[in-house]
């Protein structure tokens, strides 16, 4: 019997699990330290742990869905395969020449990311396809063999092949791939027509290179993961969340891993959207802070914006063009190198600095007792009394307060003359400010005002820092959903498994043969259905991409199941024009309308999660009190500590207070007011005087307001 759905999110520091019983809707969660050398082993350990309470969990699992930040971390830390690039001869510098433009017109000193393949590993093959797809020069196979020889001598581990116009005619690219495969059997290959079959050589080449760079690592652990699950009795397909919240099979994820670069953050966005819908929070700013990074995303009208102009490894966080393009659809979110594991140090100017590098899970923060010597945000939070050394992961992991204090004393106090507590308060403040200054620009660029956004906090470190961040940003309210410490894995289950299939048409709509279109839709739908988990109830959505002939960007219009009635064309044109006018105003374009492509989305219905509501019927008393650093004015004070599962619906708590749960801790500041809502979420209204304080905001007027 298929009964369970399991979500697994592998982060840089922790691996989170959520299990939902599809019949009762009941949810269970688990959280474990990620093994940095073999993350898939952590998954198996976690599965075994869950199986202790639910013995047949995997054999009765309907689907296992996976997301990860491992791929992004490989790119950020430049830990991927040594990669070579084979291009059309005469064009080996496409990757470095890029778009020849400065991403900031007023900054002469902009920095650009290093190309992922250095010039001496960019080689050319004699071949040429024309824009029409016609072969001008057939592939000179000897030139590919010669390149293979150089790659071999340089110990290249992965090769990206990107020939001009391969999206029109992939024959030369395919043949070059075959030759490389036979010459270099152990080398990983990515072919541009498979990774991103679209024109614009730089974007396609860059995407293919990134794909090749991460593929070895992705393949390795995804294979191990599939095997491990299978050996524990899982019989169905392993699914992986795409960077835009859609679904891929593990086979697709392995063959084009660049598509899952942002799968972990996407799962977080899905979770936040789920709670947003459930509780009518709109617009919101989702705030997911884990061990390595923090992710922020604006969710408006129930959905997060998506973009196709994604870039990895941006030199300048906010500037489009300052990173390496990966042309895959992603959620448009902000990612910052700020997490529990972010390392604090004193720089050459004698100033304290936090992140962006993280201690990860190995060695991890000093307090993990795994021989980490450098102080981290988690160490600071522990010293400030925000974290309970005996209740981290519900006591499964003990935190070593002395080790944390030692690390802070030895590195930070030593160089700044601050007491360990003062230094720890500084670390907490700086990491919050780092996130706030990035968030201000992100929020402004999306045309939003922080004062209108509720901050929805999750991830292991999210609720610890949420109130501090909200105060700096001027968000009036913070919401901490249940299971906030493992929300991303819950997000994997909150989103339906959904496959998108599309077909390029590029014909004037009036000339399109509807019988054929009808047939294409049927094929696409078949294809998508075949990928879905067995026995799912399925929803089908069909769309047409229309534009005026000659434009690049189509509008996606929802349609009914198509017939072969010619009247359809007028209907589609009508819907397109209405939407075009709505978006752009009426400009009466006279060019004919073109059908760019057709799409089918097959998905499960919105899943049902029955997240246990608080069962307590009377207000909980604090389970303890402890010394907690409240603010620079108050210093350390004795503060009540509540157990989250003890709280009852409607309970009201005035800050300062601490609410602990197994996977996270919510830190409530002086004067903040917490209420437990009927979904079990903690709703915290920030103390009036503390939001938008002149002082913090004047400091924060970042970037460009000049002095008057």
């Amino acid at each position, binding site marked *: 019997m298929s009964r369970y759905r399991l979500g697994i999110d592998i982060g840089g520091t922790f691996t989170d699990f959520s299990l939902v019983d599809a019949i009762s809707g009941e949810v269970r969660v688990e959280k474990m330290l990620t093994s940095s050398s073999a993350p898939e082993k952590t998954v198996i350990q976690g599965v075994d742990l869950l199986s202790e309470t639910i013995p047949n969990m995997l054999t009765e699992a309907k689907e296992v869905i996976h997301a990860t930040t491992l791929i992004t971390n490989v790119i950020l830390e430049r830990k991927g395969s040594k990669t070579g690039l084979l291009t059309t001869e*005469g*064009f*080996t*510098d*496409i990757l*470095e*020449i*890029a*778009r*020849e*433009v*400065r991403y*900031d*017109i*007023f*900054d*002469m*000193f902009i920095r*650009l990311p290093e190309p992922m393949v250095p*010039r*001496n590993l960019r080689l050319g093959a004699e071949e*040429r396809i*024309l*824009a029409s797809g016609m072969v*001008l020069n057939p592939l000179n196979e000897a030139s590919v063999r010669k390149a293979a020889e150089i790659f071999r001598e340089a110990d290249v581990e992965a090769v990206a092949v990107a020939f*001009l*116009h391969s999206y029109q005619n992939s024959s030369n690219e395919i043949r070059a791939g075959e030759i490389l495969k036979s010459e270099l059997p152990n080398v990983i290959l990515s072919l541009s027509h498979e990774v991103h079959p679209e*024109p*614009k*050589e730089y*974007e396609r080449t860059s995407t293919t290179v990134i794909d090749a760079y991460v593929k070895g690592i992705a393949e390795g652990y995804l294979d191990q993961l599939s095997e491990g699950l299978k050996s524990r009795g899982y019989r169905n397909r392993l699914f992986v969340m795409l960077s835009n919240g859609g679904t891929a099979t593990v086979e697709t994820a392995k063959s084009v891993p660049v598509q899952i670069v942002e799968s972990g953050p996407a799962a977080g966005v899905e979770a936040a959207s789920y709670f947003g819908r459930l509780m009518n929070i709109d617009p919101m700013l989702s705030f997911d802070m884990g061990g390595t990074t923090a992710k922020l995303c604006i969710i408006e009208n129930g959905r997060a914006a998506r973009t196709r102009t994604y870039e990895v490894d941006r030199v300048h966080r906010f500037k489009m063009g300052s990173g390496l393009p990966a042309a895959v659809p992603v959620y448009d979110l902000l990612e910052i190198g700020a997490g529990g594991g972010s390392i604090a140090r004193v720089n050459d100017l004698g100033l304290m600095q936090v992140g962006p590098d993280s201690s990860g899970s190995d060695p991890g923060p000093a307090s993990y007792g795994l021989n980490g010597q450098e102080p981290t945000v988690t160490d600071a939070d522990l010293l400030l009394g925000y974290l309970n050394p005996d209740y981290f992961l519900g006591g499964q992991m003990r935190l070593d307060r002395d080790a944390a204090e030692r690390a802070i004393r030895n590195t930070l106090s030593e160089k700044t003359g601050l007491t360990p507590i003062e230094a720890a308060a500084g670390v907490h403040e700086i990491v919050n400010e780092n996130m706030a200054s990035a968030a201000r*620009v992100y929020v*402004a*660029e*999306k*045309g939003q005002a922080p004062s209108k956004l509720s901050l929805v906090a999750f991830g292991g470190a999210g609720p610890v820092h949420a109130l501090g961040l909200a105060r700096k940003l001027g968000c009036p309210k913070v919401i901490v959903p249940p299971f906030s410490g493992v929300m991303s894995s819950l997000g994997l289950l909150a989103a339906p498994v959904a496959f998108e299939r599309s077909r390029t048409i590029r014909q004037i709509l009036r000339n399109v043969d509807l019988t054929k279109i009808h047939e294409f839709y049927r094929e696409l739908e078949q294809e998508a259905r075949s990928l879905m988990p067995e026995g799912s109830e399925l929803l089908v959505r069909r769309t047409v991409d229309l534009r*005026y002939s*000659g*434009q*690049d*960007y189509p509008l996606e219009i929802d349609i009914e199941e198509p017939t072969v009635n010619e009247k359809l064309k007028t209907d589609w044109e009508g819907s397109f024009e209405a939407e075009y006018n709505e*978006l*752009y*105003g009426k*400009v*009466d*374009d*006279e*060019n004919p309308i073109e059908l760019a492509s057709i799409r089918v989305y097959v998905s499960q219905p919105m899943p049902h999660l029955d997240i246990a509501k608080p069962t307590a019927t009377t207000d909980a008393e604090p389970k303890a009190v402890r010394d907690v650093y409240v603010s620079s004015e108050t210093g350390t004070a004795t503060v009540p500590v509540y157990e989250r599962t003890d709280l009852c619906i409607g309970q009201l708590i005035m800050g300062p207070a601490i609410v602990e749960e197994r996977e996270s801790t919510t830190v409530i500041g002086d004067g903040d007011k917490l209420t437990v809502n009927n979904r079990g979420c903690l709703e915290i209204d920030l103390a009036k005087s503390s939001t*938008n304080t002149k002082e913090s*905001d*004047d400091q924060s*007027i*970042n*970037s*460009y*307001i*000049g*002095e*008057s």
Partner: protein
Amino acid sequence: MQLDPVTIQILWSRLITIVDEAATGLMRTAYTPSVKEYHDFCCALFDTNAQMLSHSTVTTAGFLGIVPEVMRNFLKKHPPESLKPGDAIITNDPWIASGHLIDISIASPIFHRDKIVGYTLCIVHHLDMGGRMSTLESKDMYEEGLKIPILKLFTEGTLDQTIFEFIKANIRVPDKVLGDLRAQLVANNVCTRGLKNLLDEYKLDGLEELGAEVIHRTESSLRKKISALPNGSYKNNVLLPKIPGCEDEIRINAEITVIDDEVIIDYSGSSGEVGAAINCSYNMTRSYSSYPIKLALDPYIPNNDGGLRPIKVIAPEGTVVNSRPPAATWGRTMISHLFPEIVFAAMENIMPDTILASNGGSPANEVYLHGRHTDGRSFMAIAQHSGGFGASAQYDGYSCLCFPNNTRNIPIEVTENEARMYYTHKELLPDSGGPGFNRGGLGQKVEFCILDGNKEFAHDVESSVRLSGRTEDGTFPVFGRCGGGNGRGSGMWANGETVDHGIYRRLSPNDKIQFILSGGGGYGDALQRETARVLEDVVQGYVSIENAKKDYGVVINPNVLEVDIQATELLRKKMA
């Protein structure tokens, strides 16, 4: 309403978001790669006094000093009281708007609650305006295409078809050009909606208070930065490279004077107008003269009217830097793109850390191709390629990076889809970067070939390739700065023969055009460059072993690619 600093910050960002959204609307609904990829356009928002408050961040530097004047010129002809909701005004007059006929400006008033609260303007460099197209040879404006005087293109939401008919009848690719004109209206619509939403959301009646804050803060920020410079006058007089087909010698005399919190850039003594298509309008000169001041002193403040106020540009009428109608202007960037480096060179000694060595691709390259596809349809395509970026006190120059205009290249695959041609080569040119403690970026070698046509139609292709015209041994090489060497590499060939740039040439199938864009200038003494950096350049193929020795005094053993430390020390001593 009294605006506090926090609200100003939010609203200011929002004004920029609004014009950037307008630019996105433009790109999404445009038809030609010159808008979609090349980004030669701008979208701007003005208050009721026609003060520019925000300017799209995707744009080219040339619009900087132009945009505010266009709006003021429009309002002189059509004062606010004569405007109705749904009106749109158009022109391509070089002296009223942006300096050549190929740029079309369209402005719209923004009405909110029955009164004008501001204006929006979108300028686009179009694909075609008729005439003899993109050549330096035109002697006056009338050869250069159709001129559109200031006219109402839309009256209360109704298009004046006559204007469109006139344009349509005079140009080669009307579907695309008229499509792009509509995209400009989209930009204005999006901008209008954005501003109205903002006013509603913040319950504002108008932009006056916010506009005054934005402009005042920008202006005073720049004034403060200028005050930090020593008062004085700094000169730079140059003789520009010869313009193909033009007998006149062209001199630019520049004197930059810093007086307290103002900068005066005076071009008195520069050459008179010429009978070639390179004459600048005053506003064009103002754009590229103000730009380097902002770049060097106050780059992080968004662009608006306030940033232009502390800078005065003096250019006597009738000179090549302030031409009069009907001078020919198509290739005005042949001169205006040089102003930033002319200014930097003059100020080399007073602000050595915030200037760049010359860019190998400046004045910008432009390639035009016009002909028929095999099915008889006309095509017209623009492409652009950049040279090496100039080095600075801090950094090596990047290879093939645009300056000063900052337009994106049009991908090879896009151009080959538009025009009947294919590239055979486009790669970095080793050894082209000017040597220096920091090296200039590499330039590139580009080669393309004409594809077979259909003899039923004219199957030749008309093409012009405009280059900088700068050569290593000429009067105006790609200068290094503070002891750095000049950028290298230049030239253009048709089927292997040296030819002039910037003029039209008829190309038959299989004809081959080749050209080189120089590397950027170097910065500082090349003999001081760390040997490890020189070695890395050699390993990566940016610098040859021979040039490592000749330019940097670094001796590298070719067999093991290692520095011969002793030989290097000796050689560097000898060269010093």
